[in-house]
């Protein structure tokens, strides 16, 4: 059985991420340094809390370059929440701190004064792409979001799911063997587990 690595830089609730992947029929391993990456079939980058803290955390465990190289080689990768936001160039949340810059775009805050921020709860997606990552996911599927920021200026060619919250924003991107979501699949019950399973299936094929 293949093993999926989950990058662990001591942030928030990672236990649920681990359990969601295990429930989808794969072994998992904590990745606390690049040495933990041998023989992985996929890599997961979770992220909770502030953008700057996550960037610092990722650098502190020496995974900054490792993530960039992994993605550049188009190996299976799953980014979640701030692990999604970090793929872009920068964030309004922590000005002056560079993101991974894998995709064009800047992470900005919801500004509509009528909105409750953070957006906390279940919101629907609109499907913008055909992708094996999105198997069984359709327009109107609910996922669980907890965030105050979203990426702006995302290239249409990678935008996979869109969500409305005052503005229409990109809730997930896919490119090659990469998928990344603003919402938490590990907290999105059946729909979330389906997305995780789609990813796991793909790693087992490749």
């Amino acid at each position, binding site marked *: 059985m293949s093993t999926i690595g989950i990058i662990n830089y001591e*942030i*928030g*609730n*990672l*236990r*649920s991420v681990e*359990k*969601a992947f295990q*429930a989808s029929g794969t072994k998992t391993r904590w990745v606390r340094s690049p040495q933990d990456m041998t023989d992985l079939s996929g890599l997961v980058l979770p992220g*909770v*809390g*502030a953008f700057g803290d996550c960037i610092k955390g990722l650098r502190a465990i020496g995974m900054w370059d490792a993530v960039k190289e992994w993605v550049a080689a188009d190996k299976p990768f799953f980014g979640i929440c701030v692990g999604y936001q970090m793929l872009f160039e920068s964030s309004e949340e922590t000005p002056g701190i560079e993101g991974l810059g894998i995709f064009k775009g800047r992470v900005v805050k919801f500004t509509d004064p009528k909105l*409750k*921020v*953070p*957006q*906390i*709860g*279940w*919101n*629907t997606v609109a499907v913008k792409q055909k992708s094996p990552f999105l198997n069984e996911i359709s327009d109107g599927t*609910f996922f*669980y*979001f*907890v*965030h*105050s920021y979203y990426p702006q200026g995302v290239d249409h060619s990678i935008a996979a799911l869109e969500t*409305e*919250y005052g503005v229409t924003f990109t809730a997930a991107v896919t490119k090659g063997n990469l998928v990344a979501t603003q919402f*938490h699949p*590990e*907290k*999105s*019950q059946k729909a*979330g*587990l389906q997305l995780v399973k789609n990813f796991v299936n793909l790693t087992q094929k490749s």
Partner: protein
Amino acid sequence: MLAKRVIPCLDVHAGQVTRGLQFGRAEASGLRNVGDPVELALRYNEQGADEMVFFDITASAEGRKSMVDVIERAADQCFMPLTVGGGLRTVDDIRTMLRAGADKVSLNSSALATPDLIRAGAEAFGSQCIVVSIDAKRTAPNHWTVFTHGGRKATDWEARDWAQKAVELGAGEIVLNSIDSDGMKGGYDNDINRAISELVSVPLVASGGAGKLEHFAEAVEIGHADAVLAASVFHFGTFTISQVKDYLSERGICVRR
């Protein structure tokens, strides 16, 4: 569209879910055991609960350690948001719960005793996981006093002032629990819910008083709540979560189906 959330709350005493009338005290005999928290959590998970709150009702009063084990077991089987409250006093307490599988922690008495805990928690883990839970009682017309210790001790805080202060310090969500309405099945206190919902920029969860299906809709329509929380109506099977969601949906309120 962002759905209004329906949240069952599990009051846990010595590893069992219990429920009493009007802030029933764990040491008093007015509590009824209604089951194993993880079994109940799984049942609610199946019924489509949008998230779940586990509240240690003994921890604050008796300094009892919270229920890491319950959270771990629940988190391993329910892939949905979990909040833990009761007796969390330090950043380390919060970290322990997040590591066990909780997504949010709910601070109440400890935040009133040490408001800086809200700031420290939000800085360490993000505002999104710091919920401030407020036990409020109407003590004069248009005035709600914040209470601690299971509704036994009055504070100097007015509920709206405390809610606003908590959000300034970094709270990402407010739960307003009405002491007057709790366990009475006469409806949520929509006056205070609405006042706080309109005052603060973060989501408001209405708590205390659900007895009829209409009450859930009123909490959203009149109280402007972003989520509705209830305990006994779900525990005793008065309604299932799906019945509440069907009802809200018929009333034109967006819920996750």
